């Protein structure tokens, strides 16, 4: 199968709160002081695709829409031996939203050709909108299965895929025919692998396709409409007023007694 995995580069979520700053626009995080990483759910989606290819064969293409710095996550994917990587350059000055991103990804997919499976992460670790996968499915006019944590195919079932997705109460087993958009969530089976050092070195020499918005035929006006549908009117850092009261006492018994008392007061 031909698989496309959409990736996003985000501000490292492990950045401690004390180092988090808001940028000059007052509408987004300051990216200058913190590291940028591949969004974790995108890494889970990539891992799911890699495992699928190991079992069933096929090709994996990764794509990202972003700043030149986003090349780094594509190189990371190349180090995990994906078949090709595409960077769609973000030439816009406006802040992106999931609607604009989904439009660009859909246009890229149309440009690149037929994919049986399009994978995205369930949400991103920065703005966490959780909309891109669903909007992408709508843009492409395809069905979508969300919160998937396992993906395989049975050769006897004419190209259908078997999917496990998480629900509030547990999980569902689904069988679907392609083409399909899938949003991936994490579980113990799709923890991202680490690339081999040799592959990391080689990844820097691999070809990487760079496309502009004009290359994929995205019109500025339709993009402007998408980006205007939501507006960030404010972004603030919540003030923490929590002061932890440590339970004290000379003996463990005494401390446990006081701690239990606090619990009872809270839950009653």
């Amino acid at each position, binding site marked *: 199968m031909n698989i496309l995995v959409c990736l996003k580069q985000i501000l490292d979520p492990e950045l401690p709160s004390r180092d988090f700053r808001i940028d000059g626009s007052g509408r987004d995080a300051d990216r200058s002081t913190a590291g940028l990483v591949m969004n974790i759910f995108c890494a889970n989606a990539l891992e799911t695709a890699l495992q699928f290819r190991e079992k069933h064969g096929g090709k994996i293409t990764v794509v990202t829409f972003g700043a030149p710095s986003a090349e780094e996550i594509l190189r990371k994917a190349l180090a995990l031996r994906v078949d090709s990587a595409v960077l769609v350059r973000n030439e816009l000055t406006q802040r992106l939203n999931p609607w604009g991103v989904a439009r660009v990804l859909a246009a890229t997919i149309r440009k690149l050709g037929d994919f049986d499976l399009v994978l995205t992460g369930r949400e991103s670790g920065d703005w966490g909108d959780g909309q891109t996968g669903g909007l992408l499915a709508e*843009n492409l006019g395809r069905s979508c299965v969300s919160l998937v944590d396992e993906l395989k195919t049975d050769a006897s079932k004419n190209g259908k895929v078997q999917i496990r997705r998480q629900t509030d109460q547990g999980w569902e087993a689904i069988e679907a025919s392609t083409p399909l958009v899938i949003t991936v969530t994490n579980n113990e089976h799709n923890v991202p692998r680490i690339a081999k050092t040799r592959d990391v070195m080689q990844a820097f020499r691999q070809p990487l396709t760079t496309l502009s918005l004009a290359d994929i035929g995205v019109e500025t006006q339709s993009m402007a409409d998408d980006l205007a549908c939501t507006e960030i009117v404010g972004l603030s850092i919540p003030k*923490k007023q929590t002061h932890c009261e440590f339970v004290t006492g000379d003996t463990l018994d005494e401390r446990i007694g006081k701690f239990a008392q606090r619990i009872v007061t809270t839950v009653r």
Partner: protein
Amino acid sequence: MGVLGAGQRLAVDLASKHIGLIVGPASDALITEITNFADGIVVVDHPLLINYHSETTIAALTEVSKKMNPHAVLFGNETHCQELVPRLAHRLNGSAAGDVLNLKVKSETETVLVTRSVYGGKAQATIELRRSPAIIWVRARAQEPAVQQTQMAEITRWPLALEPNTQIKLINRQTATQESARLEDARVIVSGGRGLAGPDPFTQLQALAEVIGGQMAASRAACDAGWVPAEWQVGQTGKKVSPQLYLAIAISGASQHIMGIADAKTIAAINLDHDAPIFQHCQFGLVDDYRQVVGPLREKLIELLA
């Protein structure tokens, strides 16, 4: 009930009607439950809606929304609502937001302003949904419940033409955890982390949780290690919870975990490390070895709650 509260208040602010929409089988119990909290109830049922299917549900919602022409459509935080929201918004050419803590109306434009937590809880954003209708899922427990109205809602049943989706087929549905209640709705949560060093201590934590009517949860480290089911995971990459009490045992408190508990009313922790970041978010804490604490603490709680 949180979503009805949010809807009721938004309808007042928009000088609009608040309609409870039931897509799929509407039991009498469900109708009775919401009848005093909405101005009207619309039921759209169809044989294809008996078992939840994302594609047919979106098709049903799209058709009924086009007919009703709402200012906004609100959903709760069930996982299937989360997948419906952006897609419905796209089909209605509206705008969307998820995991919303607060809603209000910008009166000049009658657009909806939502507040949500971003960047792992490190910041809070206010976003204007400029294209109507606004399709939103709210963090249900963060919403004040609806107030009882004197008038009972009038019930309308609308017929619906739906095409079956043959592309995606549900094979089976499994309930993984013994608890029927959702973690997102839990009032008390007992959660364990990497410091437990294995699956066994969770049995002890479970026994403790039962005493205070708590549900079990875990950090990403514990879930990734396979000690407990993935559904237990709380944090940025897991569930976002808002209990009255969140008791974190042997959890260091990485920022991605804190994101999931930012809306807990009270956070308490038991950790051997006085400097563990979790304590920066706690109202009260105990610096001791959980192995010596959990058993006696359970006994003490039984005594106090008797």
